[in-house]
């Protein structure tokens, strides 16, 4: 299939989320960032059980409630209504971030504005004058969780690469990202920089390279 084919190529948001979910081990404690990462919860692979943590004080978060079944005081970090599963627990913010900072959460899936070849993540501020900076729990998550996955479109809406040599936006954390799931590919962050791990259907290595702002090691 050539790059100028009219057939749809790459992964949808849901497919990116499903692909990321496949890499989460059985029994993991998982925190999901706001946006596409939230979709990961819909794609727990058959036979696995994950426990979802939401930093506003809940372990054992379940899927969104049916319309009309929302509980006004039961929300996730994105301030959307959620449910609880059997075996859930509520706790305060210091205990919640003890779970994060103390290394107890196994996997965190976050969105990104930029990821550098060294695994630096920028996802909280453009740093532009007049922008309202808002960090939330992102810096705590990248500092405390062993495995940080990123789900993001490969480029910005205006076609700028999000995988870059060096982040131009203010950092969320240095050297924290291990794997990136984009609409085009799965990319690992290695000591030698980005490495292509998997291509989305219909996507060529050349296209991924062209749309990346840093070199990519080939698929092994």
């Amino acid at each position, binding site marked *: 299939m050539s790059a100028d084919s009219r057939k749809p190529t790459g992964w949808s948001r849901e497919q990116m989320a499903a692909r990321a979910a496949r890499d989460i081990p059985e029994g993991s404690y998982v925190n999901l960032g706001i946006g596409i990462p939230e979709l990961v919860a819909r794609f727990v692979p058959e036979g696995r059980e994950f426990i979802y943590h*939401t*930093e*506003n*004080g*809940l372990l054992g978060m379940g899927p969104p409630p049916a319309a009309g079944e929302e*509980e*006004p*005081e*039961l*929300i996730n970090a994105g*301030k959307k209504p959620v449910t609880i599963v059997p075996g859930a627990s*509520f*706790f*305060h*913010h*210091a205990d*919640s*971030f003890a779970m*994060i*900072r103390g290394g107890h959460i196994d996997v965190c899936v976050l969105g990104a504005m930029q990821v550098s070849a060294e695994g630096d993540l920028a996802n909280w501020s453009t*740093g532009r004058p*007049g922008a*309202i*900076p*808002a*960090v*939330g*729990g*992102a*810096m*705590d998550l990248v*500092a*405390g969780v062993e495995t940080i996955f990123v789900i993001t479109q490969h480029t910005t809406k205006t076609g700028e690469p999000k995988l870059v040599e060096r982040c131009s936006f*203010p*950092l*969320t*954390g*240095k050297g924290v990202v291990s794997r990136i799931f984009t609409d085009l590919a799965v990319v690992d962050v290695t000591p030698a920089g980005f490495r292509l791990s998997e291509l989305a259907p219909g996507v060529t290595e050349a296209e991924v390279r062209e749309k990346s702002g840093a070199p990519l090691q080939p698929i092994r």
Partner: protein
Amino acid sequence: MIDKTIDSAAQAVSCIGDGAVVMIGGFGEVGSPVELIHALIDQGTRDLTAINNNTGNGEVGLAALIGNGQVAKMICSYPRSSHSKVFPELYRAGEIELELVPQGTLAERIRAGGAGIPAFFTPTAVGTPLAEGKEVRELEGRTYVMEPWLKADFALVKCDSADRMGNLTYHQTARNFAPLMCMAAATTIVQACRVVEAGAIDPEHVVTPGIFVDRIVEVAEPVQESRLIAEGRSYP
């Protein structure tokens, strides 16, 4: 006999004076002590430093307190909201100060204030603009930043049940920052959905022990911010 209950929200907040540092419970609207905040608006107290995870929604509750020009400085982790233009406008106009703190560091600084720990080291924010100007130290091979405790003159929180001694329980994710803020404030003011007899809360289930609580007012049917906003309401 110890009895921390007070008749009205107005009386409960009457001790808060201009220039006070006030922690306000809640994560977005969940857990927000809206009636206590509105009483503070009625009272017109000014030059406040407000500590909350966010900056309020719409033109009610915390957003209304800010919009009314009563807050000189916000300490928070996430001052953006899909339903509030109040803080962004004042901030861009340079009319309100902002101290941005990562959410976990904010929680831990408040807990430290309550626990008598003046400073601690954390890996959060190392290598980012939010660590600039802070003491950094290598411990056991990793770099950490030193963060100071955060205390307040007052805490305003919402709880589910309270007894006359100040023992509190919360409901679902409305717990969030409240137990920490109760610890870290010189005077903690609580609005409770229910005031119950001492002993009615199982001692195993108390979340905030009464030692951290000073004043309790019963607000049996607290408003929901999102409902007020949907109705297009503003305060006052």
